[in-house]
């Protein structure tokens, strides 16, 4: 199985969505996430959501899903791009229970809300904290970024 096969199958099933196909990952639009995920789980055999994380790209946020299919031995990297003024995305925890805690972690560290999540609370930081540490604009008085070229040449 290849990325291109999967992209083809998804495009056949959902002709209306705009699928961005890159060599290593696929980008789906936010609105189509749940449908594509259902399709991947039920018909293409992706039994596990192996990893779920987010990357702060300063002008947008990416939510990255790593889905694995045991029957096809293939790890699919799926991305959803969300803009900074609407940090919400559908939750896939109804399909894969592993996404439950992983989405809570993304909420805790980035502030992205997952709609229809059974229990969206912070998981690692204190419950009544207000900040989201892994964002690139996270500022604290006592957090000093190290100068990058400390002692390095080249």
């Amino acid at each position, binding site marked *: 199985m290849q990325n291109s096969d999967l992209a083809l199958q998804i495009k056949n099933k959902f002709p209306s969505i705009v699928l961005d196909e890159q060599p290593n990952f696929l980008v789906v639009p936010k609105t189509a996430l749940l449908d594509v995920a259902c399709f991947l789980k039920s018909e293409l055999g992706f*039994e596990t959501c192996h990893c779920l994380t987010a990357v702060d790209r300063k002008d947008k946020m990416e939510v990255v899903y790593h889905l694995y299919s045991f029957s096809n031995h293939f790890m699919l990297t799926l991305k959803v791009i969300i803009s900074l003024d609407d940090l919400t995305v559908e939750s896939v925890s109804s399909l894969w*229970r592993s996404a439950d805690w992983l989405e809570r972690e993304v909420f805790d560290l980035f502030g992205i809300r997952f709609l229809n999540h059974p229990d969206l609370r912070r998981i690692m*930081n204190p419950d009544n904290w207000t900040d989201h540490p*892994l964002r690139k604009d996270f500022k604290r008085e006592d957090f000093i970024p190290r100068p990058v070229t400390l002692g*390095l040449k080249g």
Partner: protein
Amino acid sequence: MGELLTVNMGPQHPSTHGVLYLELTIDGEIVVNCKPHLGYLHRSMEKIAENRTYIQFIPFTDRLDYLASMNNNLGFCLTVEKLLNIPVTPRAQYLRVIIAELNRVASHLVAIGTFAQDLGAYATALFYTFSDREKIVELFDNICGSRLTYNYMRIGGVSGDIPAGTEQIIKDFIAYERKQLKEYNELLTYNVIFLARSKKIGILSKEKALNYGVSGPILRASGVKWDIRKEEPYLVYDKFDFDVPTGGVGDSWDRYKIKLDEIEQSLRIIEQAIGAIPEGNPVSKVNRVFRGTGETYMRTENPRGELGFYLVAEGGFNPYRCKIRSPSFSNLSVLSELIKGLNISDAVCVLGSLDIVMGEIDR
């Protein structure tokens, strides 16, 4: 007692294997609800990774799953090598395999000893397994100077060659450990009380295991024959001949027995590798400074499951984003499902059999 009682287990408790806080709601002796609270060991490693160079981050990976530091180092180094296309010398590959498998044996020994202790075989099994582990830890001390957090792997190889005489020590250890495995089987595995306490407790079905993203010995105990070392071999694992043991039912006894079987398989791998180490220089001769772009995801088989690193690089000296997919995190999420309806004693047994390390759950 008809009313429900809320009991706090942890964060400091003799059998929660670290700082885990479980809020149990019990009705008499039966657990009705379980709410785990994490974060007592959160050290924001992923944020730190964005502020360190690739080499500077390797000691931090030691402290994730501190019982299997070498395997964590290995996972991170392999991810960086995959991202930046850095070759590894053959001697370094064999050394990495041997060291990683020895660390797997050490980690499983701790798991076995502490599981027996949770069940009440107070300290005897623990002393035996820890004195076996002492041999491994002393060996690592000779190789890299440290007993728990090794920082031995480097990007492109290892930090130093093994001293003379190490191969003989490892061969002696393999013979000794095989005898000890027989003793553990006699002492614990087929003991009537041990069986009564752990058979049919906390059964995890195959479908639930896959859905919850469980991996490693727990997944194999539930009947799924899955090992990254066989399916997506990294380093030189495809050159070795070893089995992947699976359990029958997925109860706590299976999860315990699998660890003994895996120790035997690791000893087989080490035996084959020791006989075939090529000559050469295991220390990498690459740039001290790595820069690259792109992203990659690489997973390795840790003693606790599949450790994955998702690395995004944007051309700087530091990673742009380093996500650590820790196996114990997903393994722990099954706990609240498994212990509903069990006694408190059984809850302790299930938690012990899941073999979690808080260092990698909280990062």
